[in-house]
C-alpha cells in the first residue's frame, strides 16, 4: 500500500489535459498522443486535486461522497495517484 504524505498536493501535468464527460474523465497526454479514461471516482479525485485539495482532503471528500471508510478511500486514491503519476498525467505541486 502506498504511503503518500497526506499534505501532498498534485496538479494536472502541464503536458496533459483533463476533461470530465458524463461523470468519467479523460486525460490527453500530448507528448505521447495517448489518452487515459478514469471512472467516476477517478474523475472526482482528479477534480478535487485540481481544486488544490491535498490528498488527505481528497480522501475525506471520498468518504463523505461515496460512504466508504477512510482506509478504502485512501487505497483507491493512492492507487490512482500512483498510476496517474507514472503515466505523466499529474505531477506533484
Amino acid at each position, binding site marked *: 500500500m502506498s504511503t503518500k504524505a497526506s499534505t501532498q498536493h498534485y496538479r494536472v501535468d502541464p*503536458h496533459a*489535459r483533463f*476533461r470530465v*464527460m*458524463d461523470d*468519467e*474523465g*479523460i486525460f*490527453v497526454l*500530448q*507528448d*505521447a*498522443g*495517448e*489518452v*487515459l*479514461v478514469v471512472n467516476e471516482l477517478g474523475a472526482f479525485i482528479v477534480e478535487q486535486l485540481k481544486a488544490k485539495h491535498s490528498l488527505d482532503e481528497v480522501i475525506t471528500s471520498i468518504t463523505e461522497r461515496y460512504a466508504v471508510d477512510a482506509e478504502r478511500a485512501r487505497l483507491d486514491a493512492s492507487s490512482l495517484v500512483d498510476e496517474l503519476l507514472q503515466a505523466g498525467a499529474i505531477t506533484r505541486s
Partner: protein
Amino acid sequence: MSALTIAFAGSRYRFAGLNPEQLDLVRSKFDALLGTDDTQPDVEIDVHYSPNPEGFMRRPAGPVEYRVAVVHAEDSVAVAGIGFTANIDRRPLRAQMQTCLADEWFVGAFENLFRVVACYRLFSEGALVLHSAAFTDGARGFLFCGRSGAGKTTLCGLADELELGILSDELNAVTTSAERLELQAMPIAGDFGGAPSAHPPYPLTGLLGLAHGAPPSVDRCSKAEAVSRIVASCPYINADALLVDELTSRAAKLVERMPLRILSFAKDTRFWSVLNHEYQSQHAALSR
C-alpha cells in the same frame, strides 16, 4: 524542376520543386488523384532536393517501419524522417521539404510528409483524420478507429473477402456538415496496400472501435471511452498543444451525433452480418 497537384477531400495540394525522378515517382503513385488545375492550391509544398545525405536521417539496410518525428511549435510544425526534413507553417498552411532522396525511398518520405500536411489541412476544414480502417457496401460507410495492432488490417482483409469496398486501412477522414457526417478516404494505405484511388464521400453509417472476441458483437461504450478512442486515433493533432482542446471538443460533438460502438470480431467474416443488422436496425429506427 516541376510541380504537380494532388486533389482529394475537397482540397488541392501543390508540390513544387520536384526533380524529374521525383516527379515520375509521385505521378505513378498518385496518378488517380492528380489535378489538372494548378492555380490557387489550398496548400503549397516546396520540395528542395539536396543529394548530399549528410544531415538527414540515414536510410536503413532494408525495409523498416519507423515513427516520423514531429515537433510542434507555436508557428510551425517540424517533421523529420528517413532522408528528409520538413517545416510546416501553420498559417497559412504550407510546407517546405528538404530531401536527399530521388529513388523509391522518396515515395515513402513524400507520403510521410503528405500524411501530416493533410491531417492539418483537413483539421483546419473541420474534419477529423483518424487512424482507422474504413469500408463501404456502396451506400453506407463504416469507420473503425484504432491504433496499430487493433485489427484494422485484419478487418479490411475480411471485408475484402466479402467484396466490400476498402477505403483505407490506415487513415480516413470524417467530415461534418449540418446535414450529415461523411467518410472520406485518405490516399494513404497501410499494410493492406493498394494504389490511392479517387473515392466519393460516403455517408458515415457506423463509427466503431475494435476489440478481439467471438462471437462477433456490437456493443455500447461510455462517452468518455468513445471520445478517448477518437482522440487517441487522431495522429499529430492529438499531440499538438495548440489543437488538442479543439480536437477533444470536436470528438465529443461527433459522438453526440453518432455514438461510437465497439465491434468485437474474430478472424472470420461473421462480423458483417452482425454489423449489417445493427446498422440496418438503426436506419429503420431513424426513418420512422
